[in-house]
């Protein structure tokens, strides 16, 4: 006859086995159609490029070398690949600027929403949620129609006589920045709002009671308490921004590429799959670093709360 301990252990084992079976479909689909192929990208980045797309199964570090370095066509000397580095730098810069702009606009907006009355709060949340759910392509397209030379910004400014010729915004880095800030703003507002909503305003009262000014209350009480939301929002904006494809390809035109467009180019006209793969891995590493910073920060924050 089985002892109590054996029965208990068998029950635990069965529970864990059932849980593996239950999660198997999701895990298999993701492993096959998302995670697994990432490993193939890694392999491809070490292969030799074939003339018309695809690869030859021959090991070559060439792709990785050319991510950062350029081989002179005539004398084979290596120098920094200025073009690539410019694109990387533009992507990182634009992603960071997008994060800063959306934070600067999104924080007050979230604060405004969280300080509305219980009833109207849901309405404001709804108004933020609609753009969040609307197709990103359509929203980018909407921005395009506003900022182009015949768009309402230029038309209004010219009608008012402030400018005589339209300002060229479209197909500049500024256009990409405006577009990304526009499409990613809800991603910043929502998590900040979520933590702001939980904020106990009696703490703010306590702050004023102890002689803090409005600015000091904001700096010393509100900001530290909603920090998890701020960090989550920043990450949620930064990660898609650095890999943005649709917005730069519509608003940036052909010249102002971001990494994604450059990667696409390698798989398209440039026919250099290994370089495209190496670039993709590089973006992924940048994102992983950002995520690691995030986990570190929130991990520490939740640890504090527990302790």
């Amino acid at each position, binding site marked *: 006859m089985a002892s109590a301990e054996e029965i208990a252990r068998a029950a635990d084992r069965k529970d864990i086995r059932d849980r593996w079976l239950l999660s198997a479909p999701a895990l298999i689909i993701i492993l096959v159609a998302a995670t697994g192929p990432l490993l193939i990208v890694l392999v491809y980045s070490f292969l030799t490029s074939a003339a018309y797309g695809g690869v030859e199964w021959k090991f070559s570090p060439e792709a990785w070398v050319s991510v950062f370095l350029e081989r002179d066509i005539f004398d084979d000397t290596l120098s920094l690949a200025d073009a690539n580095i410019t694109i990387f730098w533009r992507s990182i810069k634009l992603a960071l600027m997008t994060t800063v702009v959306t934070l600067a606009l999104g924080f007050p907006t979230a604060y405004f929403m969280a300080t509305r009355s219980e009833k109207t709060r849901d309405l404001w949340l709804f108004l933020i949620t609609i753009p969040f759910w609307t197709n990103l392509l359509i929203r980018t397209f909407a921005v*395009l129609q506003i900022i182009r030379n015949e768009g309402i910004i230029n038309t209004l400014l010219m009608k008012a006589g402030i400018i005589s010729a339209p300002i060229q915004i479209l197909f500049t880095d500024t256009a990409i920045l405006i577009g990304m800030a526009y499409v990613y703003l809800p991603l910043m507002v929502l998590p900040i709002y979520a933590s702001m909503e939980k904020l106990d305003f009696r703490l703010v009262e306590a702050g004023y009671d102890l002689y803090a000014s409005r600015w000091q209350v904001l700096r010393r009480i509100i900001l530290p308490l909603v920090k998890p939301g701020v960090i989550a929002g920043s990450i949620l904006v930064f990660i898609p921004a650095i890999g943005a494809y649709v917005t730069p390809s*519509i608003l940036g035109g052909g010249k102002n590429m971001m990494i994604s467009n450059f990667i696409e180019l390698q798989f398209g006209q440039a026919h250099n799959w290994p370089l495209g793969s190496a670039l993709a891995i590089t973006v992924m590493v940048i994102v992983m670093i950002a995520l690691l910073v995030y986990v570190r920060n929130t991990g520490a924050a939740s640890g504090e709360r527990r302790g």
Partner: protein
Amino acid sequence: MAKPFSIRHQPGFTAIAALCFFALYLPILVLVVYAFNAASSTAEWGGLSLKWFQSAAQNTQVIDATVRSFQIAATAAVIATIAATMAALATTRTPPYPGLTFKYAAINQPLMVPEIVTAVALLIFFSRIKIFTGYSGLGYLIAAHTAFCIPFAYLPIRARLENMDLTLERAAADLYATPWRAFRRVTLPLLWPGILAGLMLAFVISLDDVVITEFVKSGGQDTLPTYMLGQIRRGITPEINAISTAFLLLSVAIVTLFFFVSRKRD
């Protein structure tokens, strides 16, 4: 008379918020208005007309792309929601067990890698399989969409489960319900709003996808978003505005539904 001191006020915040809401809705509004433009260019205003809606509705490319989009989104969302529901049941309301962290990481993996990287990976992987099997149908797009929809469907289902009292299922077991009947009669009815929210989220995410579809699709497999991207790159006619407006309407309808489903707590 001096204004009383308001605890909640922060100078300038309301103005910035107003600006944000205005800026969020102005472009959408303009886009919608121009969908009713009679002129053949979006650069000028030629009076009100429905002609671009008619033209879009008669455009076979648009119709094909729309049908394809819905086919893919519906299939992917249903499969993803079923898989996500099972996975959520397997990963919540349990003390940590070996492999749990791995499961979390795997399920959320598609969220943590930029879309372009996944797109490239699938392009490489599926192009090999295409050569190998000779099959080049919608299966690839559906598989890809299902995979990146799973974490989105998983989110609300897991949240709902974690707020669900495990005691209710114990009570069912105590009252002679077998595990399957307890699931059917107690767990599933209570989980239903979460599943519905997950399904809608997955559906919208799939419907909206551009990047992965753009890389994975074979010739003639345009979805509505990739078709629109192609058109926008080529130059704009108000027809795109008309399509966008219809799309927008659908999104608003789904958000409204989602909002009520996920807010409803009993």
